[in-house]
C-alpha cells in the first residue's frame, strides 16, 4: 500500500519536473523563434532603409528651387557642380545605355555560347576544367577589371581604333561584356539542363544532329530562362560601377560614339561621393536622385526577369 503511494508520488514528481522542463524549454523555444524572426526581418528593414534613404533625399532634391522635375527628364545637360546648374539626367542615361549595349552585344553571345558548350558539348572532364574558369571570371573584383580596361585594353584598342580617347565606353563595354559572361552562362546552363531528357532523345530519334538538337530543341525550350539571364545581365551591367568609373570617364555628354568619354549614372554617384559637397547642398542631393533612378531601373528589370521565367517557362509535366 505504502509502496504504491510512494510510486505514485515519484511518478507525480517526475511528471511535474518533466512538465516544468517542458515549460522552460517552451520559453527557450519561443525566445529563439523571436531571435530568428528578428534576424529575418533585417532583410526587410534593409529594403525599407534603401527606399527611405533614396526617397527622402530625392524628395528634398526636387523641392530645391533650382530643380524642376520636367527639366530632370527633358534637359540635355547634367552640370550639378557648376555655377550654372543643369539637372537633366539624359546624358547619364545615354552613357549608361551605351556601355550596357556594348557589354550586352559582347556578353550575350559569349555567355550563351559558353553555356551551350558547357551544357551540351563538353565532356564531364572538360566541364570540370571549364566551369572553374567561369567562376574565376566572376570572382575577379570589378576594380581590377576597371584598371585592366583602362591600362591594358584601351592601349591595345588605340592601335586599331583612331580617335579613341583615354577614357572611353568601348573598352569599358568590352571588359564589362566579360564581367556579365558568367551571369549569362550559369543561368542559361541551369535553364538548358532543365529541358527534359525525352525532348533530346526524341529529336535524336528523328535523326537530328547534335547541333540541330541544340539550336532547334534545347535553346527554344529553355528560352524563358535564357531571356531571364539576358535581362539579369543587363541589370548587372547597368548597376556596375568601378569599370565605368575608371575606364569610361566622368563626362556627362550625350553621345553614341563609343570612342568618347562618357559618364554613367553609377560613375556620377561614385565621383559625386568624393567631391567636397555639403551634404545638404543640391549637388550632393543629386547623387540620391540618380541613385533612385538607378534603383528603379534595376528593380524593374529584376522583377521583369522573374516574370519572364514564371510566365513563359514551358511546363512539361
Amino acid at each position, binding site marked *: 500500500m505504502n509502496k504504491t503511494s510512494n510510486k505514485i508520488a515519484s511518478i507525480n514528481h517526475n511528471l511535474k519536473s518533466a512538465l516544468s522542463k517542458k515549460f522552460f524549454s517552451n520559453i527557450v*523555444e519561443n525566445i529563439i*523563434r523571436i531571435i530568428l524572426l528578428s*534576424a*529575418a526581418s*533585417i*532583410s526587410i528593414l*534593409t*529594403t525599407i*532603409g*534603401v527606399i*527611405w*534613404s*533614396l526617397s*527622402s533625399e530625392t524628395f528634398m532634391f526636387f523641392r530645391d528651387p533650382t530643380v524642376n522635375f520636367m527639366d530632370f527628364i527633358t534637359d540635355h545637360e547634367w552640370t550639378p557642380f557648376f555655377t550654372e546648374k543643369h539637372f537633366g539626367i539624359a546624358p547619364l542615361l545615354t552613357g549608361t545605355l551605351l556601355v550596357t549595349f556594348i557589354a550586352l552585344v559582347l556578353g550575350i553571345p*559569349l*555567355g550563351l*555560347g*559558353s553555356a*551551350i*558548350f558547357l551544357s551540351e*558539348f563538353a565532356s564531364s572532364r572538360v566541364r570540370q576544367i571549364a566551369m572553374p*574558369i*567561369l*567562376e*574565376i*571570371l566572376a*570572382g*575577379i*573584383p*570589378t*576594380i*581590377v577589371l576597371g*584598371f*585592366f580596361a583602362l*591600362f*591594358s585594353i584601351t592601349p591595345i584598342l588605340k592601335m586599331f581604333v583612331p580617335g579613341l580617347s583615354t577614357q572611353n565606353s568601348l573598352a569599358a563595354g568590352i571588359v564589362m561584356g*566579360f564581367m556579365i*559572361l*558568367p551571369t549569362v*552562362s550559369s543561368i542559361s546552363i541551369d535553364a538548358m539542363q532543365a529541358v527534359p531528357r525525352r525532348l533530346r532523345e526524341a529529336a535524336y530519334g528523328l535523326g537530328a*544532329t547534335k547541333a*540541330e538538337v541544340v*539550336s532547334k530543341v534545347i535553346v527554344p525550350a529553355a528560352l524563358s530562362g535564357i531571356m531571364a539571364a539576358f535581362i539579369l545581365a543587363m*541589370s*548587372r551591367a*547597368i*548597376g556596375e*560601377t568601378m569599370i565605368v568609373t*575608371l575606364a569610361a570617364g566622368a563626362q556627362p555628354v550625350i553621345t553614341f560614339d563609343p570612342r568618347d568619354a562618357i559618364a554613367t549614372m*553609377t560613375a556620377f*554617384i*561614385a565621383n559625386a*561621393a568624393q567631391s567636397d559637397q555639403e551634404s545638404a547642398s543640391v549637388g550632393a542631393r543629386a547623387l540620391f536622385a540618380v*541613385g533612385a533612378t*538607378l*534603383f528603379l531601373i*534595376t*528593380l524593374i*528589370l*529584376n522583377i521583369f526577369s522573374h516574370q519572364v521565367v514564371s510566365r513563359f517557362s514551358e511546363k512539361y509535366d
Partner: protein
Amino acid sequence: MNNKNIKTNSLFTAEEKAQLRHRKIRGELLRYFSLIPVVLGFLLIVFVFYANINSSFVWQLVDRGGSGQVFNSSEIKNDEQAYRLELNARGMSKEDIDDILTDPKKRRKFLLRNRVDQLLEANGKNKQTVVYTIERGMADKIEEQVPYFAGLANKTALQLRAKEEGLDLFLNPLLDRAFIIRNNSSRPLMAGFRTAIIGTLWVIGLLIFIASFVAVATAIYLEEYAQKGIFSSLLEINLRNLAGVPSIVYGILGLYVFVRAAGFGDSVIAASLTLSLLILPVVVIAAREAIRAVPDSLRQASYGLGATKWQTVSRVILPNSIAGIVTGIVLAVARALGETAPLLLVGGAGFITTIPGGWDVLKDSFSVMPLQIYSYFATPDQAFKEVAAAGIMVLLIILIFIYLFAFIIRAQFSRKW
C-alpha cells in the same frame, strides 16, 4: 561486284548525302564556336594576371640622391643593417646613426622617409638592396618607370640612357616585403599596403560575425520555422530583389543610414554594416540550399525522439549543413573583399594613413584594399599606376587562397545523402 551494288543502291541519293555532310559540318562548327567564349574567358584571366605582374615588376631609371650606393643583398640580414649601411655611406658617424635609429621620434620620421627595397637587378648585378629616400635635399628621383617585359625588350636602350645621363637602372619588384609592411604614403616611392590590409582585416572580420549570424538565422527561420504565409513569401520576394540591387545603392543606404543618421561617420563599423547587408542575400541563399539538402528523414527521426524544434535545428540540421553554409560565407567574403563602389560612399577614398586599432576601433577611419587601389587611380602621379598593380596582385593572391579554401571545404566536408 557486290560491294559496288550496295553503293549504288544506297538509301540516300547523292544530293541527300551532300546535305548530310553539310549538316555534320554545321554541327562541328557550332561545337567549336561554342568553345570560343570559354577560351576567350580563360585568355582574359591570363591577360589580367599578366598585365598586373608585368606592371608590378618595373625597371626604374633612378637619379640617386641618398648615398648613391647599392648593397649586396647576401650581406644584408635585415632592414636595420641596411639602414645602418646607408647612413654610414651618407657619411654619418656611428653615434648619429644610433641616435636616429633608437630615438623613437627620430626613428619614426626616418622610417617614413626611407625604405629598404630588394632589387632583382641593379646596374647589371643580381640581387642588390637599396635604401630609397625622400629626405629633403637628397631625395631619389625616378626618371622613368618601365613595366617588366617592355623593359626587357628595350634593355640595351635603357642601359644606354642610364649611362649617358648618369642614372641607375634597377629592376624593382614593387610587390615585395616592404610593400606589405609599410604604411600608405602620398609618395609612390614610400607607398605601402599595410594600412589597407589591416583596415580590410577589421572590416571583413566584423562582417563575418554580423553577416553570418544574420544570414544563417534568416535561413533557419525561412526553412525550419516559417509557415507558408504572407510574411514568408514577402521575405522571399524581398531577398530575391535585394540580390539584384546594384552594390552602389547599398553604398547610398550606408551613407544615409549608418554614416549620417546613426552618426558613425566614415568608420569601420559603417563600412562593415554596409557590406554585411550587401552580402546578406547571397549568404542566405547559400545557407538555405545547404539546409534544404539535409534529408527530411533526419528531421523526422529527431522529432520522433522527442527533440524540440531548436534541438533539432542546433544538433541535427546545422551540423549536417555546416559545410555548405561555411562555403557560402567564404564565397561571400571573397566578394566583399573586392567590393569598392559602396565603400566609396561610406569610407571616402582619400589617402588614409591611419590604421584602425585600439578601443575606439569601430569608429576609426579606415582604408581597405580595393579603396586604396582606387585612390592610386585618383592621384595624378603616374608612378602610382605600378603601385596599384602591386596592390591588385596582393588582392588577387588573397582571393585565390580564399577560393581554394572554399573549394577544399566543399570537396572535403560536403555529404551526399
